[in-house]
């Protein structure tokens, strides 16, 4: 691994994003806009908005980075740039960490803007501090990136890649406890939810928002960290130096 190559890769990914103004605007504007929508959809139930608004700030980066990474990595595969990089003195981890660094940075900006709108303009009222939500959001973004990177190996077209969002992300969103507490789901689903990374991402956010720190939050953070490590390891196995 080389720090030079990792940083060069992160810079290159950010440059590509900067060229694509529209994507950048969408990534930064859609989450606060959706949160605003939530705020007024639940106009008559402010307690609902206060419960799910905070965690949502931290879940959005997971979803956007999943989408952006799966398409970006698919492009690297289909345009031959991945093959070129694999024939160069570049460690797989340089590429993975380069992407992680770039998207973590983008997620930090995204989550900060979303948090500023939520806690400022929309009057989101939580017990826990906003910075904890932003910090967890960055971790979740890296999780989204790692999942997207791994799953992009199973798509051969961009049409397929975008379908992974409803196939992989939506079920996790339903089962993570955001909409319905997990202990009120069918027992089978609750059991399944224990195996899904977003469950821990949400649980950590919910605890941070409620001002509950402690051991359970640490477990959530560790679980998200483990999910990132597993996804990256699986993702690395899909970056092949030799192909048929």
């Amino acid at each position: 691994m080389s720090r030079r190559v990792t940083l060069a890769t992160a810079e290159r990914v950010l440059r590509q994003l900067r060229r694509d103004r529209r994507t950048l605007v969408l990534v930064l504007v859609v989450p606060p806009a959706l949160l605003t929508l939530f705020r007024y959809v639940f106009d008559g139930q402010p307690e609902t908005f206060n419960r799910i608004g905070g965690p949502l700030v931290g879940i959005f980066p997971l979803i956007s980075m999943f989408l952006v990474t799966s398409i970006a990595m698919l492009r690297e595969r289909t345009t031959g740039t991945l093959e070129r990089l694999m024939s160069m003195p570049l460690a797989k981890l340089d590429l993975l960490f380069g992407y992680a660094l770039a998207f973590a940075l983008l997620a930090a900006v995204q989550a900060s803007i979303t948090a500023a709108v939520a806690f400022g303009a929309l009057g989101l009222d939580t017990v826990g501090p906003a910075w904890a939500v932003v910090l967890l959001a960055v971790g979740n973004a890296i999780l989204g990136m790692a999942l997207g990177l791994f799953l992009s190996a199973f798509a051969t077209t961009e049409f397929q890649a975008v379908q992974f969002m409803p196939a992989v992300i939506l079920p996790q969103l339903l089962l993570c406890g955001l909409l319905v507490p997990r202990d009120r789901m069918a027992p089978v689903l609750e059991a399944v939810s224990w195996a899904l990374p977003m469950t821990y991402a949400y649980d950590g956010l919910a605890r941070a928002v409620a001002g509950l720190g402690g051991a359970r939050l640490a477990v959530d953070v560790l679980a998200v960290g483990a999910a990132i490590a597993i996804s990256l390891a699986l993702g690395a196995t899909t970056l092949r130096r030799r192909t048929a």
Partner: protein
Amino acid sequence: MAGPVIRISHLRVDRGGKTVLPDLSLEIEPARVTGLLGPSGSGKTTLMRAIVGVQLVAGGEIDVLGLPAGVPSLRSRVAYVTQSPSVYGDLTVRENLRYFARVLAAPRGAVDEAVVTVDLGEQVDQVVRTLSGGERSRVSLATALLGRPEVLVLDEPTVGLDPVLRRDLWNTFHRLADAGATLLVSSHVMDEAGRCDALLLMRGGELVASGSPEWLRRSTGEQDLEAAFLAVAERP
């Protein structure tokens, strides 16, 4: 260096259940421009990928610079340019080259030098997506020149280029070879065969002839290399 730079014995490659290269053996001499010629589908790209070490092979041995093809230490010494340009369409020419130069730890000035070599000085700050096909493949070629590789494997680098630029690029290839680099250049047009120091003629995954253009002309009695190729290919 003494002896061949690339040595292949009994190479076998299967792709998608079919045998693309059944049993290929050949050698490529150093500091020369070797042309790999043959119709499309004859296995040229597969052979090149195997030499670079990105192709899964079913059997045989490939030595490049005395090492097994694809080992990590060869990655900065062997450069490969694929047929379709593999560069980032959403970056400028300069941004692309700078990135790959950093990955390769290329010396300072390598980017400017490569830009001059492929004659893209005027387009250097243009986003690659907006370039013509020929310009894009020159960006891809420039990328391969950055690390001053000892072996350059170029898959149809001159397709779609205008004749003047094509001549200039062939001159560049020979200049690189004179400086000690070994080049393997594929083409499906026989009129480029005359520009090579040595030729490898392929058909249906097999090597049908190898030697210098003069040797090919002499041994077939044909002045035209296309006719010479036909004569060799149809020899029983």
